[in-house]
């Protein structure tokens, strides 16, 4: 099992985590007109890169959602970033 680092809890077994999405997708403003192509891209298009990837993960143990940068071939974890600045 891999070790992922939750920004709050620290390093934990990968089974405590769940993949959420590729990082970088912004939800279109659906109160305005959104084209079929834009909406389809938001729903379905993935970059699916080989190598460095930036992903949104959830640490389901504490529910923290964060960004993890990984290498999709070597499985190395490159960086873990909280969505928000530390408050304390």
């Amino acid at each position, binding site marked *: *099992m*891999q070790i992922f680092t939750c920004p709050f809890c620290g390093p934990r077994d990968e089974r405590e985590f769940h993949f*959420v999405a590729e990082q970088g997708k912004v939800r279109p403003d659906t109160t305005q007109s959104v084209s079929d192509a834009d909406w389809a891209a938001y*729903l379905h298009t993935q970059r699916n890169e080989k190598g460095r990837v930036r992903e*949104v993960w959830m640490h389901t143990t504490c529910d923290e959602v964060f960004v993890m940068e990984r290498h999709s071939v070597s499985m190395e974890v490159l960086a873990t970033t909280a969505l928000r600045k530390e408050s304390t």
Partner: protein
Amino acid sequence: MTSFRMPTGGLIDRTQPISFTFDGTAYQGFAGDTLASALLANGVRVMGRSFKYHRPRSVWGAWVDEPNAIMTVSLDGRDLPNCLATTTPLEDGMQARSVNAWPSAQFDIKGGLDLFHRWLAAGFYYKTFIWPDWHLFEPSIRRMAGLGAVSHDVLDGYMSDQIHDRCDVLVVGGGPAGLVAAVAAAQSGQQVVLVDDHPTLGGSGYQYDRIEDMDPQGWVAAQVQALTAAGGRLLRGTTAFGVYDHGLVGLAEAGPFGTAPRLWRMRADRIILASGALDRQITFANNDRPGVMSLFGAAEYLARYGVMAGRDIAVLSNHSFADRVTQRLTDAGARIVPVDPVTDTPRVIGVKTLKAIDTGTRTHPVDTVLVSGGVTPLVHLWRHAGGKLDWCDQRQAFVPGAAPKGMVAVGAANGTFDLEPALEEARGVGAAETTTRPSCSIKLTRLVPKLGTTARQWIDLQHDVTLKDIEMAARENYVSVEHLKRYTTLGMASDQGKTSNMAGLAAMAAVQDVALPEVGTTTFRPPFVPIPLETYHGRISGELRNPVKRLPLEARHRAADAALCEYGGWLRPGWYGSGDPKQHIQAEAKMARETAGILDGSPLGKIEVMGPDAEAFLNFVYYNTIRTMKPGQIRYGFMLTEGGIVYDDGVVSRVGQNRFIVSCSSSHVDGVRAHLEAWRQDGNDPDRIFVHDLTQHWATVTVTGPKARDLVGALGLEVDLSAAAFPHMTFREARFHGHTVRIARVSFSGDLCYEMSIRASQAERLWDAVVAAGQAVGAAPIGIEAMSILRAEKGYIIIGKDTDGETMPHDLGVSAPRDRKTAAYIGDRSLQSETAQEACRKTLVGLAVAEGDAPLVTGAHAITTGGSPRSVGYVTSSYFSPFLGHPVAMGLIEGGAARIGETIEVWHDGERRTATLCAPCFYDPDGGRLHAG
């Protein structure tokens, strides 16, 4: 003592004799023997029959590289199949039986199969047995092949213990290099764990007369002492079977015979691979005969077990390291005949007993042929971790190349075959110094298999793959190493090509006339040796494999004779009573319509959403409008996915300006919580919204039916239950013996219904009071099955049963938000897509059958008539309604909502029936009973 057992020498204890049997014959060995060493000591040669051709076989090697000596072993009533005789420690009373042979390995009646070898070559299923239909032959073929039978008795207590651990340095291999590396690392202050798969450490060290001027046993003991003194840990009889991501190593620690290994999930910052090397096969005529063995295997038998492989020995070798072993065998009294495999064309003579070796020019009478075509570093774990291999021409072997992160190889595993340089290299690595591979003294002549001979030459002993099979694979263009492997099955047996990979590559290289490294290598995958499946799950089995959640009221349900079953992850009452379920379920559903039913609704989700942005947040998460709810109100709603699919349904209660309770489906609680948290943190201000899952803090007792008000009124809760004061879809708080009870007037049944939630520690008290009050009005507990009928009579859906992966809210008849809600919500844009607007979408309808007909089958398909029928939907729920006296059913049918009144054909398992589409509500469509005054 037989003449194959030396009077002294080896690690065995000659004062502890051990009795055992093999194929019914009694033999004796000693403590410290393996099954194989004891059999060899007794002069037993034939130990099994090969997989395909049933050729008599003996041992090749002394440890895990053994491809032939596989046995079923029994001890004290425990029976284990597929034991490798070379790694099974001998125990008193053991009974070993050869596999794939009847009545014994020595006299196997299927030995005649070998005569048909020309029709049993690689790919023979598809060639010899393709006509008329190969399936006809398959059962017989499978019965004839195979290794070992599994006893039908599951071994009691055969459970793998599993434990996590970590260390700074994990040293894999307790031979000379591994030992000194571990000592150096431990003495430099590192937390070290050393693992070795033998019961006794020392690896190949016992094959030397002296190590650093000590006898090997004394030297090994000194290393062990130094290691433990420096705080190092040792795991003997433990195989490192795989390296996984982020420095995780799987270790299987063997226990007493018949017990499952212990799994260590060992996390190591650094792995030192000292796994040693294997002897390399040589391909020559009849090289699979009993008596043909690995040269270094013979050295091990002598060094560890004091057993001579033979008396008159031919040594086939192409390299200088063979000399040391040959000398030791000579010193032990063997007569040696050297044979050069490069210049000669060797051929073994003898079937069950080796008689001679023909070099092409002469025939030498010998009883044993010892073979070494080179030394192959064991690089499996290196490759698991993604390390690269380099080809070395001098060694004619693959050696570790570019290292994976956190791993370094030492000793023979690194191609450092000479002892002193290996010790120096290992000490440096253990102390974390940068080292380069020292030069190797080996002088080796490249050996190329001779193609096109008439006699067969074996490549893979366990799967009976010969050089002819390789030649044929090449002729049929299966030349890539991946195709070669899978077409011939070379390297795919339980020994995973330990002796056959290099031979196979050399053969394909010869066939294609290229250098060996150009053929390539296949992927090394864990486990390094066969590991029982039990090891991977351990105590996660039986009731603990997928434990159900338990209700606070379980004891009450059991006492009331409830039939309990898993439903949505919880153990819940399906109905109450023993015997025929149908009658109980029908009676409960009828009673709930006539008087009242009492249901344990505790698993219902109770997720509180609080904060100044809670209202806006839920308004976004829900399809329905939440903004307009007032405190005390309950609203039914859907949660959609961004694809517009209905993900969950449930009710939301507004407790206050900044406080809501989301009552989602019991099976979706974790999913809904995660869904809320993901959106809360990524897209909203999490400082203004908080999600508390309190589902299990509260138990819920539900009372449904015309008598519900009377029943609840008798509990003394001091709440005005009149319709005017307490309308449908509102809630109140009351006190029950000093504890808060939240009473929600919300209905799953279509009847007057109250859901009472109280803290779980008070559940039994409330339940007892409700059941007692129920007796006065003719009400009693009902289970899930009855509940399913009640809600179906009313047309209330169950997500995932009456909806599927394409169902959108307007398919269920709920289209107001889609048309009118202006605020954004999850899934909104998807409801406007082309697919979402199609007229032929499957929509929810009721399905009625003719009077007296049986209920439709759930899952039955509605089909078009005439021509080639296709499915236009299916029955999602179907029951016999005891209250209405006829079947009720719902389904998702294409364009169904616009086809009310039409008759359709319903097909199931060859049977056709007709049904009429109707509104999906068979009970109280006007809602009079629901809003009961």
